[in-house]
């Protein structure tokens, strides 16, 4: 595989991590900052999974397994947090 592509992704990840902290210091409204920061995290995670872990080049079923785990965890988190009175 292409080392250049890996390097480019590494640079993007590095920048995105820096951007998260800059967003925090930018003085945005709390929930706006939270949303941006979490989207940046998700984007980085997708990049690492798709290219460093080669999920893009595996059968899609492997991705589905990981997404199932993620959905289970999200279902637990969101429903539990919502259930609080």
């Amino acid at each position, binding site marked *: *595989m292409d*080392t250049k592509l*890996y*390097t480019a992704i*590494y640079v993007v*990840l*590095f920048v995105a*991590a*820096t951007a*998260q*902290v800059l967003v*925090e210091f930018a003085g945005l409204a*709390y929930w706006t*900052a*939270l949303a941006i*920061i*979490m989207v*940046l*995290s998700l984007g*980085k*995670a997708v990049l*690492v*999974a798709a290219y*460093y*872990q*080669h999920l893009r080049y*595996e*059968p899609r*079923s*492997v991705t589905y*397994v*990981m997404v*199932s*785990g*993620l959905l*289970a*965890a*999200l*279902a*637990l*988190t969101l*429903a*539990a*947090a*919502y*259930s*609080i*009175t």
Partner: protein
Amino acid sequence: MTGDTTDDTDDPRPGGETSGSADGESTRGDGGTATVGDLPTTAPDEDHEHGLPPKSSIKRWLVTTNHKDVGILYIVTSLFFLIFGGVLAMLIRVQLLEPGGTILSDMAYNQAVTVHGLLMVFWFLSPFAFGFANYIVPLQLGADDLAFPRLNALSYWLYLVSGLLLAISFFQGNSFSGGWTMYAPLNVPVYTPSVGATTTVFALLLFTASVTVGSVNFLTTMHRMRAEGMTLRRMPLFTWSILLTVWMMLFAFAALLAALMILSADRVLGTMYFATESPGGSLLWTHLFWFFGHPEVYIVFFPALGAMAEIFQTFTGRRLVGRKWFIGAMLLVALQSFVVWMHHMFLTSINLQIKTLFMATTIGISLPFDLMVFALIYTMIKGRIRFSTPFLFAFGGLVLFILGGITGVFLGAVVLDYEFRGTYWVVAHFHYVMVGGVTGLVGGLYYWYPKITGKMYDEFLGKVHFGLYFVGFNLLYFPMFVAWETPRRVFDYPEAFVGWHQVATVGAFVLGVSFLVMFYNLYASLISGEDADACPWAYGSTAEWAVPSPPPLENFPGRPSYGGGALEFLDRGRTTTDGGETEAATDGGVKAGGHGHGHEEVSHASIWPFAIGIASLFVLVGLSGVRTGNVAYPATFVGGLILLLYTLVAMTRESFHGPSGPFGESWPFEGVENTKLGMWLFLGSDVVLFGAFIGSYVFTRVAYGWQAWHVVPHDPIPGLMNTYILLTSSFAVVLAMVAAQKGNRNGVVASLAVTLLLGIGFLGNKGIEWWELYHEGEWVATSIETSTFYLTTGLHAAHVIVGLIIAVYMLVRAWNGAYLDDDRPVEYFGLYWHFVDIVWLFLFPLFYIL
């Protein structure tokens, strides 16, 4: 996947006609098949069965990795735990002869109730089913063994050791006494202070580890190692039920693992997730526990359902009516099982909207079960029933399950549950369901006994067993419905119910005696029973009945194939016909080269799974009492850790050949080699583990007030530094893989060394940060904020440490020139390392910025 167009009218039952085709000898003395003879790999004193000592030798049972042996170990051990849990049940029933109790102290009763529940659900029911799964599933798939035979043996030894830990807990003050659901805050040391209670939690923790290893192994096997033509749609029903069970296990047990790790931290490290002061602490436990606990109901019941379906087919001589729909219904239940958990929590403080939602999903999950029940009933109507012992038990199981299911619908209604919760209605309901499942599995025990032992059980005694069992069961549990107002878990109840409880106690003893009849029958038949044919039943149709009883070590006389529509055994040497890759799986160990012939020698023995089990015992017993001040505990812990590391390295270095694969059917994971798929599946469960940790943090913070929360680190910069470090280390692993692909030894060594150094740097940076926080008075037990911070990032750090240990091992091997002709180990290590990186990408903002 082949272009399989099997529709529902095709007979999927393979090869009943080919039964008994192999030689009648139970063991073959030539140490292998006739096609290979050029590699004398077995030691002279162990030439009996591929390096395995004979079955009469104790050593065989310590070193075996063969799926049939492991299956027998599982069945025998689980029956031991049945007796253990059954004796506790007898004590409970004797105590309940009179209101206020008879023979047990309060504490003894609480322990008996708790450990009875834990033993029966975890250490008996599931492992009993997995004994059959181990033995039967590879036969039904057409596989020589599981994908990772040593990990299979490891699952067994961890299971046995976890049960021993539970037994040990009784001798450390007292065992856990807060009920099998371990509700918070009763589960924290303030209320259950004994060392034995901690050991009980550890026992369950180790059991969970065993289950996780087992689910990864079974999923890899069942998806990747099916014989040519054995498509998922053609898979026998028992194997289908196990496939769905292990998928549920993979995700559900990860949530339990999270719950138990947090609980262990609360008990040993002093975190305060479940403490009374913690916001939503007791609610958090119920969420984590029941998110696992409801799938667990089906995890224990599905194998019984699968066994019942097979027995119904064999003893009615008819294919299951609506087979395709039956499988679809099971699939639906497996999915739905993850969205019904809050029906166990109608009397907690969750809001009414979510209760209503979960009442609806609960009603929804009963519908596929209706279909399955009717499919079984119609199969009986359409077929001609032979009332042999296995059928009687399977039929009895169905009747009991119907009763248990209907009474459960009452509990699923919010308003009725307000009344029934905490009463014997619940106790009666889940015993009808769970022990109804046991009934089906006992049917499975009689059904497969001739296959496993090669001997026929005594039919008359089998029927006596069923009579006593069924009468005893109903005498025991039905009165509980009548006396439902008896409060659960305590031994005081209104005088009006004395009669009913005394009837129940009599029933308990009848049920217990029925098992004595069974044990006698099985034992006597083993010694002097008639020899069983390959297929002792008139209509046995699945592949296990096409090989001798018991099957030879290598299972099949040739390579099984369903390519022609029915089961046939092809020449092992012909590897070109399957149209797929053929490779040697090395079970994560050292890959040995040079197997150019079609059927390579397969290993069946390793002492290391057993040794790892023993090491785990020392680790956990040592850890249970570290807070007592007795130095023997930490000494045992450290000694155990060293032994554990040694045994793990030894197993990794051992040369071991698992069975090769794939054999033609690997949908939907074609092209994902066994070890890689195993790694991905493990990571899938790890997603749920970390997800549950992060979910616990989010839940607790929401309960606390999201923005009122105090973020523990002062500023995000150290966290940002660690993000840079981990990202760079991930990049280094990628470079190591590229170097390995290019055959560049120095590149591999340098990249792995950089990974190692960065990992150490990550931990060092974290250490400095923790040190400073500690000196500012922000330590693990300071507040709920610090508890979640230290434990979640600590779990991540533990993953980093494990990764670094692997990196050291790989660095040494890379220095010696490994990985240049095969870069896969570097790639698979990378999958793990990148996953740890991804987790940090979420922990960093959640714990440092927001």
